[in-house]
């Protein structure tokens, strides 16, 4: 039975502000889930803390709403213990790039096969609009008493430096695009990041829906707004790394990712910036050490016999510590 959008609805009242970008991300995720060949019973959504992280309660799939900044810890632990799960993590930019940025970096090093969507709106919404790590230096959004005193983190570049093997950006109100990015991220074998740009209609009065849509920039010819976002698909850009590439070709593509991720302002690229499936995923690395890992992962191992007694052969396990007393020939 095909999964319908209505199947993914819960009875939980949605308390996001009207016009919030979170709605677009939620809709895109749900559309992607209905279009992907995944068993919804195997999907586990994890979120951090913040407006965006309430998403799991509005979605009828296993939903684990964790701690501020810690979503990746919980999500990675679940995926490692049961690799059959389709783990998708969501969270805000403050959550993932502020308090949780250490986990963000190290998740890249592991390259666990899962997807992570960052709701990126430049502000901390639930605490009333403080600057988040993606807000640019000198910007003064509505509730800031003074302009932002810190430079911003570029999530795409940080992800590249950390070893993420799929890096994409999309825009919350381009649901068709975001949906496709989510499908690609989930299908990707490795750790996949989507930086989902989104307006915060309540606290970010600079990067608004109108700003992203380019309503301040009317094309004199067509008299229509010129949107700031543009799709990398269809341009000459190619951020793929494949096994047959030479070292120089790999370097060239990596530099391109850095270059492209710096574009901002009147032209904001969206799409897949980088994809590299030549890096072994963490599960495969574990399987090298523990050859039974993928077949019998931690969540599925039999621990006890029917009578409750442990199946572990303690004699063999403790052999190195066992001393038989020695009989000496007199």
């Amino acid at each position: 039975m095909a999964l319908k959008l209505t199947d993914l609805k819960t009875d939980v009242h949605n308390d996001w502000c009207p016009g919030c970008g979170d709605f677009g991300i939620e809709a895109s995720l749900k559309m992607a889930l209905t279009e992907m060949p995944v068993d919804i019973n195997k999907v586990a959504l994890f979120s951090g803390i913040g407006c965006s992280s309430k998403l799991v309660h509005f979605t009828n799939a296993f939903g684990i709403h964790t701690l501020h900044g810690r979503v990746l810890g919980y999500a990675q632990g679940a995926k490692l213990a049961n690799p059959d799960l389709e783990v998708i993590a969501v969270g805000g930019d403050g959550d993932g790039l502020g308090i949780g940025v250490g986990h963000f970096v190290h998740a890249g090093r592991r390259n666990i096969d899962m997807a992570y969507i960052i709701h990126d709106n430049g502000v901390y919404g639930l605490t009333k609009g403080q600057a988040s790590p993606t807000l640019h230096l000198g910007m003064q959004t509505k509730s800031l008493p003074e302009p932002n005193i810190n430079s911003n983190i570029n999530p795409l570049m940080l992800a590249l430096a950390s070893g993420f093997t799929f890096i994409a950006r999309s825009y919350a109100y381009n649901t068709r695009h975001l949906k496709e990015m989510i499908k690609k991220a989930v299908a990707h074998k490795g750790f996949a990041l989507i930086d989902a740009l989104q307006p915060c209609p309540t606290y970010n009065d600079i990067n608004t829906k109108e700003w992203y849509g380019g309503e301040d920039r009317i094309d004199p010819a067509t008299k229509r707004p010129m949107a700031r976002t543009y799709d990398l698909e269809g341009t000459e850009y190619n951020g793929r790394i494949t096994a047959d590439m030479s070292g120089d070709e790999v370097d060239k593509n990596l530099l391109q990712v850095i270059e492209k991720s710096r574009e901002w302002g009147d032209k904001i690229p969206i799409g897949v910036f980088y994809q590299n499936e030549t890096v072994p995923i963490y599960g495969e690395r574990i399987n090298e050490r523990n050859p039974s890992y993928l077949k019998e992962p931690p969540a599925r191992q039999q621990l006890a016999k029917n009578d409750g007694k442990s199946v572990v052969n303690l004699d063999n396990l403790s052999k190195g510590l066992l001393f038989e007393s020695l009989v000496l020939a007199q």
Partner: protein
Amino acid sequence: MSRAIAKVNDLSWMTGGPQGSGVDSSANIFAGACVLGGLWTFGLREYYSSIKGPHSYFEVRVNSDKIRSHVNNVDVLATFDAETLIRHAEEVAPGGGILYDPTFSNIEIDKVESIETPVVLRIKARLAKQNLPGNVTGILEEAKRRGVNLYPIPYNDIIAKTAAQIGEHQLSKLSRIVNVLSVSASFAILGFNENFLNQSIGRAFAGKKKVVEMNEIGAKLAYDAAKSQLKQPFPFQLHPIQNQPRLLLMGVEAIALGKLVGGCRVQTYYPITPAADESEFLESHGNFDISGGNNPGQKGSILVTQTEDEIAAITMATGAALTGARAATSTSGPGFSLMVEGLGWAGMNEVPLVITHYQRGGPATGQPTRHEQGDLKFILSAAHGEFPRIVLCSGDMEESFYDAIRIFNYAERFQMPSIHLIDKGLANNSMTISPPKADLVPIQRGKLIQGDHLGNGNGEPYRRFAFTEDGVSPRAVLGMPGYRFWNTGDEHDEMGHIEEDPDNRVKMMTKRMTKLDTAAKEIPEDEKFNFFAPSKKQADVTIVSWGSTKGPILDAMKLLEKDGIGVEFLQIRLVSPFPTETVKQKLARAKLVIGIEQNYSGQMAAVIAEKTMIDVKNKIVKFNGRPMSQDEIYQSVKQVISNPAQNRRVVLTHGA
């Protein structure tokens, strides 16, 4: 002077040296040889927070019966550097022996840079008082005057001879065998057959043929060199006895074995002393044999993941536990401080998460490699808000093993974070024990929904946090069809969705806290505490303690009983939920209660006061970072008994 043989199979042997010079391996080789000879050992391991250089030492006590603690006196001090000699010669009892390198005799004490100035001054003052020079000769002369036997071992000659025998011209390559030479020389004066040592060397360096060979040749030469010096038999002797096979292991290994037997299949950790040894053991035993499983030939495995910090360690382990895997993390004080937010989340979401916590000297970095029981009250109340937790303290190797299984059972049966509380002494000390049994503690998974279920069956949606009489709800895991659920750190409804309704709050808090009452009811009494009764009807003194003080207390009890003092000992193991009624009943009828703890304030005594309103008026405490010895407890208990009112708080200080 009469040199009659004083003691057979009852001695304390010590070795020491710069960290990284093979102190641990020589002690393990010594202990291994003793165990191969049927004897029992207890090993005290003391080391600095450093990789190479600073002084570490290892004391091995040997006996023909099982022993559980170390003693104050050293009977044989086997040194291969000047510092060990200078620091520890004083501890050697009259009649004991010191093995040393004769080329050290002119070394001035204040020229040994790694000895701290206060120690140098203290030793020099001591020697000056006896009109002795402030050098190694002075130290040796002082020992001799006390009746200590001196055995100079020409290590350099032995190394040179060994090199000649194996055809190795670079002497420096052989210098590292000096630790084994000191072990071998020890066995020579102790009259212990050298074959045990050779077997032990073979085990210690298994697979390294050349290393085994050079050690064996050197050992033989050292053995003969020491033997040739014996004008009279040394008063302490070791004789092999027949015995059953036994394990020689450290606490961290006992716990790791228990974890694997108990079904732990995910362990996360961030490197920290002294907890990391456990994770390393698990990783090196990551694939293991199973028997009696449904798939013949199937192997078991544990996933050990080193994380970026302890916050990741606890959150990852919790995520793993949500899939139904038995998952744990292992840490020590500073690491647990970081984990606290994750502890609260696991409490709120009723996750069966296991934390093995190794206490060390605090606060802050404190004494990273030293012993303390200073985290009890912290563990009991860590994290904001109120939620139930299991806290179980083990006292020795066997208990650690079985409790490592039980803690997973408790975690799953009562669905709450469960902390196995250990201390550095137990973690790092070594001991000979009879092999524990894999099937003594069955695996109990409580209300875990198992097997392939398609839905609840009754058309009702599954409620992860369903209200029940005992507070425990049927537990599904991620990926289980028909059992969709939500978790959140917010207060939630039965489904797991955020809910701020005051009535729901009262019901949900009550549900969670009720589980602690359920645990208190369901956990058998003999898993909550141990009670060691006195040989006479009414005890003169009641000792109450917890954790690794169990060993020296039990050993000291034997000595006290020999003196005609009736001693009973209440060892509290389960601190949350607390066995209030038992403790109340045992202490209320006691003549004299002494709380013995390795912390400053008497934290268990404070818990007892809170739970039972009983004031433990007499305390024996120690917080210098070194575990209590049998002798210290024996002497201090006697001191308290002699005048309880004048000895309300005795502070122990033994240990280098």
